[in-house]
Each structure stands twice: as structure tokens, then as C-alpha cells.
């Protein structure tokens, strides 16, 4: 017996295995970042004073990065749509741009972190910086993970397109869901850490 519903949807649930699987994984990620948001709220409330985000962090850089990441989410969904239209070349183009934008995000993040270190702002300096570095650091690790997965699908993983187009498209949909989630976290992280 082979495992069913890898490619086709199960009629009564309307789902493929990978789609349900990735959404459940994202639910657990919501709880992971939720605990960190909870820590942020508690630490801020008990602090006698809390820095103004815009004075410690670089808001223009953060805004630029937000645009970059949202942009990568847009190109990711275009990559998926290309596959739905049987256009492998389009998929490769948009996936390549997605990866490029992700790396740009990381480079900018690198500059931001480096600047903070240069002026003596480390995670151990105060709890605001501790939670800032931890949350953005964990988010950055998720971006790296996403880049690895996306690069695999752009490269060796795309061979699956030749033998099973639907299964490959389902995988890209899952990768896309993960990537949009990473974007979603940043959409909340940016105002909370930089602007409030």
C-alpha cells in the first residue's frame, strides 16, 4: 500500500497531507513566538524605564527591511502562481528573487547588529536589547531555514517537476506558507520593537 493524499486531496477533509502538516507546524510556531511576545510584554511592564525603540534602533533600516521581506513574500506567491500556470521558468525567476531579497534582509540585519555592537549595545546590556536580539535572532534563524529550503527547491528539488508536477507544486505551496508566516512575524515584530 502506498501513502495516499500526497498529491490529491482527501475528499472529506479537502486537504493534502503536506498542507495540513505545514499549517499545524505554523500553529506551533505561533506559540513559539507567542511565548517571546509574552516575555516582551512582561519584561516591559516590570521595567522601571524602557528605551524608545526609535532612539536605539535604526527605523529607516528596519522599514527598508520590512519592505524587502514583504516583497519577498509577494515574489514567493508569484513563484507558486507560475507553477500553477505550468511555467517553470517563471517559478525559477521568482524563487530566485525571493531568495535574493531574503539574503538582502539578512545583510541589512547584519549591518544593524554590527552597529549595535559597535556602540556597546549587547544582549546583556539591558532587557530591551536582550529581547530585541533574541526575537530578531530567532526570526533570522527562521529566515535562514527558509532560504535553505527555497534554495533546495530552486535547485535539486525542482527535478520533481519532471516526474510529478502536482506534488512539486504542493511542496512549493507549503514552502510558501512557511515563508509568508516568517513575513507575518516580522510584520508584528517591526512595530513592536522599533516603533513603540
Amino acid at each position, binding site marked *: *500500500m502506498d*501513502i495516499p493524499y500526497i498529491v*490529491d486531496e482527501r475528499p472529506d477533509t479537502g486537504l493534502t497531507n503536506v498542507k*495540513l502538516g505545514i499549517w499545524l507546524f505554523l500553529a*506551533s510556531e505561533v506559540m513559539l513566538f507567542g511565548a517571546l511576545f509574552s516575555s516582551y510584554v512582561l519584561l516591559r511592564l516590570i521595567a522601571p524605564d524602557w528605551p524608545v525603540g526609535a532612539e536605539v534602533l535604526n527605523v529607516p533600516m528596519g522599514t527598508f527591511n520590512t519592505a524587502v521581506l514583504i516583497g519577498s513574500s509577494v515574489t514567493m506567491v508569484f513563484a507558486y502562481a507560475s507553477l500553477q500556470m505550468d511555467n517553470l521558468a517563471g517559478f525559477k525567476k521568482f524563487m530566485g528573487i525571493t531568495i535574493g531579497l531574503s539574503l538582502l534582509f539578512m545583510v541589512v540585519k547584519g549591518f544593524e547588529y554590527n552597529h549595535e555592537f559597535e556602540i556597546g549595545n549587547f544582549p*546583556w546590556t*539591558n532587557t530591551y536589547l*536582550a529581547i530585541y536580539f533574541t526575537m530578531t535572532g530567532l526570526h533570522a534563524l527562521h529566515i535562514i531555514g527558509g532560504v535553505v529550503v527555497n534554495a533546495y527547491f530552486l535547485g535539486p528539488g525542482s527535478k520533481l517537476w519532471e516526474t510529478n508536477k502536482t*506534488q512539486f507544486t504542493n511542496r512549493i505551496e507549503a514552502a510558501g506558507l512557511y515563508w509568508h508566516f516568517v513575513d507575518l512575524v516580522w510584520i508584528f515584530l517591526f512595530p513592536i520593537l522599533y516603533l513603540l
Partner: protein
Amino acid sequence: MADVTTTEETAEETIDHGHEEHGHHDEGFWRTYVFSLDHKVIGIQYAITGLLFLLFGFTLMMLMRWQIAYPGEPIPLIGQWLGDERAPGGIMLPEFYNQLGAMHGTIMVFLGVVPLAVGGFGNFVLPLQIGAPDMAFPKLNMASYWTFFPGGVIMFASFFVPGGAANSGWTSYAPLSVFATTGQTMWLVGMIFLITSSLLGSVNFIVTTVQLRAPGLSFMRLPFFVWAQLVTAFLLLLAFPPLEAAGVLQLMDRVAGTSFFMPSGLVYADGPWDASGGGSVLLWQHLFWFLAHPEVYVLILPALGIVADIVANNTRKPVWGYRVLVASVIFLGFMSFIVWAHHMFLTGMGTTMSSFFQTTTMIISIPSVVILSALFISLYGGSIRYTTPMLFALAFLPMFGIGGLTGLPLGLSAPDIHLHDTYYVIGHFHYVVAPGTLMALFGGIYYWFPKATGRKMSDMLGKIHFWGSFVAINVVFMPMFIQGLSGMNRRMYDGGAQYVMNQDVLYLNEVIGIGAWTLGFFQLFFIYNFFNSIKNGEKVGDNPWNATTLEWQAPSPPPHGNFATAPVCYRGPYEYSVPGADKDFLMQGEPDQTPAEPARV
């Protein structure tokens, strides 16, 4: 919703199978036995590893019990090998006692019970019970085991680093845990591996249960074991991540000098703690217990599932109140997320929050009582067969009852003021997990061993194991309630000898110790029986217990892919003693003459 008469066609023809998961045969030793993708092999890997860790964790406790019963006396036989940093002259140092305590808890919960109950039983039985060829994601399943294993190795190895293993309790409260020796860092890293493994597994379990049920196997026809595993998987999925986050935060406090959990103005043995301060020790407790409370339901739910299946099988009647059981287990899972601060009644929370958590805790006892009552009522009017699995299942019921009832004064904030951190708590939670879950898991091993190996374990050895363990385990844990009520605190390395209030109940330490070592002795029967029966056990057919659920339709042991053709489900899971039937059980997958009703969701 396909109607039953056409499901057999739809099952095979219209589904496009991905061929990546199709097994290859003759793959060599490593692919077959070590890095296998087969849920049965992975389940056995989890089970054996879990049992080994249970034995190790129990050994740690047998050591501790010596120190508690005879404080300051050299440990016989083993004492000389422990070395001077742990037990100079064979006499246990307090630091080592603390390591044993913290690691006993951690190992039993995270490396013993959960891997056995969820990783072992869940992996092996669940796909078979739903008529699936394997888990939905076999590679993820393998990754899950091989993430768990290094976590276990790290935990074990932590005993051998300078300063020894983690010693701040399995609860690792800050700031003590942040001050602690290197072993604590290894504990945190180990936990990250274990939690990741758990998350990968829980996704697999939920997708498998939802998507890979055989045609005709609606949700309300699932064996209660599967329902229990499904709810457990949701608990693991949603409750573990906050602990993973907290673990990272504590790691940063220890290694990077941050102050997530370190308050301002803290002074340690050597002087002021050199960090920015501004953190909150309670933040750790909230994040820890947010997981750790659902975790205790992770410990009990698979056991309830196993007991339900065994009881139905050995009373030859359906469990009473199937729908009530399902509703209760779902409600229990949901409530388990909003009771956690009953572990924190003594942290200075005001009456509003204490009342909130006390109320939710009282409410959560309702589904527990309902489930237990349904299982008890299931016995009424049954033709009880006292097989070895059934002995364990029967014992489970009152033991879980004692455990649950003794939880009530702990869940009410006022009596908890007296009982918190006493031996009463230890008695309560051990009753639920040790005479409770562990006995159910043993019952499950005796029950499903024939499916996994094609042979039965020896009944005689099984009964010796059962009776010896049952008596000894009560000797171990019942006196703890007495000690706790008289105020004896937990985690004291001299067994409370220094305190005036404990003097009248100190003698019980020796009683408990003897019980513990006796309990250890009786496990030898199980260990011998288990391994010997693999080769020499009585050979049996596919369904030695005359059970109804789908796993008994597969060969014993099932081959790769489990079923030659996809099974179809025609009826509920516990159709025993159906009036008018020609035998006293009707298997779920066995067609009959009357058209079966199409399955609803």
C-alpha cells in the same frame, strides 16, 4: 463522503500516490534497523529507548532512596564506584543528590514515559489501528526519533561533566538554575532537541489520524486509543513551543549574561550577580508550567487510551459511553492549557488569579472523573478475562483514581498552602504516573507484544511481575501522603531528618526504600520475559486476544506497508458480544451481509 460500496474502488484507483515513500526491500542493516522509515521499527526504537531510560531513571531513584532512608550511610556495592565528586567514601553528597533528583524527573517524564507512550505505542499502533500503510510523513518520523536520541545522549552525558548533571529540579526554576553548573546548560540543550523531536512527531500524528484513516473509518469509529493519541499530539504541538522559547532564554541568561529571568539586585554566593537585572523569575515559571501542565496530560492520555482498548477486549463488551469519552478527552485537552498556575499558588499571586486557576483546575477534574467512571462502568456486566494486560488495566483504574483524588486539595489554593512542595505532591503525581500510566503502559506491552513479534509473553512471569509491582508500588507511594500531610518537604537530601516536624514520619523513609528496591527486583521478571519471549515466546496467530480493532487484521508482525490491500471499516471499534452475531466479537474490517451505514464525519 463516498458511500461504502464504492470506497474500495476509490481507495485504489483514483488516488495518485507519490512513489517516494514506497519501500524498497533488502536495504541493508542500517536502512532496515537503524535509519528505517517504517513506523513499526521507529516505534520499537522509541519503545526500547524509552524503557532503557525508564530503567535508568528508576535506578537513580533507587540510589536516592538509600540516602533518604539511611542518610550519611555509604551506599552498598555501587557507592565505591561513584567517585569522590559524587559520593566520597560511598556517602552521597548533597550536590549529587540534587543531580539525581533533577535528572530522575527529567528522564522519567521526557526520556521515559513520553517516548514510550507516544513515540513507542503511538508510532507502532496508530497507523495499524486506522488501517494506514505508515505514518503520513515517514522521513519526518525518522527525523523525529533521531532528534530525540541525541537529546537523550546529551542528558545522559551531563552526568559526566565537571559539576555533574542539572541539579535545580526538573522544573529548573530561575535564578537557581541560572547559577547552576554546566550540567544545566546541557539540560537546556538536551531539552531543545527533545522538544523539537516532539513537535515533528506531533505534526505527523495529527496528519496521519486525519488523513490516512481507512475508508469507512469515521472519527466516531476510531478506537479510543487513537482519540487519546490525537488529543495528546495537539497538546504537544501547542504547549511545547513556549518551553522551547523559555529554554533558549534561560540558555542566554546562563551563557550570554542576559537577564530574562534575573531580577535586579540579586546577590549570589560570590557577590552581586553580574548582569543587567530587570528580569522576572516568574516569567520562567509561567512559561515552564504552560508546557508542564499539558505535559502531565500527555503522560496520562495514552494510558487511558490503552486501558480503554484492553478493557473492551477483556470484558467482551464495548466501553461504556464512547461519545462521552471522546467529548471528555477533547474538553480535557482544551482545559489543560488554562490551569497551569495551580503550580504557582505560592508565588504571591493575588486572589483574583488564584481563584481563576483554582476554578479551571476544579473544572478539569470533571472530564477526568467522567473518563475514569466510564471505564469503571465498562466493567459492569462484562465477561472479564484476567489476562496479564487486563490485570494491569484493572489496577490502573483505582490507582489513577487515587492519583486524581489526591490532586484535588492541591488544586484548591487554600489547602495547597499547606501541601505545596511536600511529599503529598510527590505521592499525588507519582500515583497518576507510576501506578497509573506506567502500569497501563506495561499492560499495553503485554497486549501488543504479540502483534509486534508474533509471540506472546509468558503469562506466569507476567503475573509475577504484575503482583510484585502492584504491591511494591503502593508501598512506595502511599506513605508519601502521610509524610506530606505532616509537612515533610520535598527535595531534601537527608530525607527530612533535620526537621522536628518530620521525626514521627521518618521511619516511613525506610519503608518506602524497601518498597522501591522490591519494585526494582520485580522488574527483572519483566526484562527477562520481554527479551526471552522475542525468541522463545509461544507463537500465536494474527489475533490472539480475539480483538476487534484493525491492527489485529494485519499479520503478526505486519510487513512493510502493513496491509496487503487497504482495509475498509464497517463498524465501530468495540463490537463485542453483538446480539445475534455468531461469535462474541466482530472485527472492524470484516464485511458482513447487511449493508453497513455510510460513515459520517
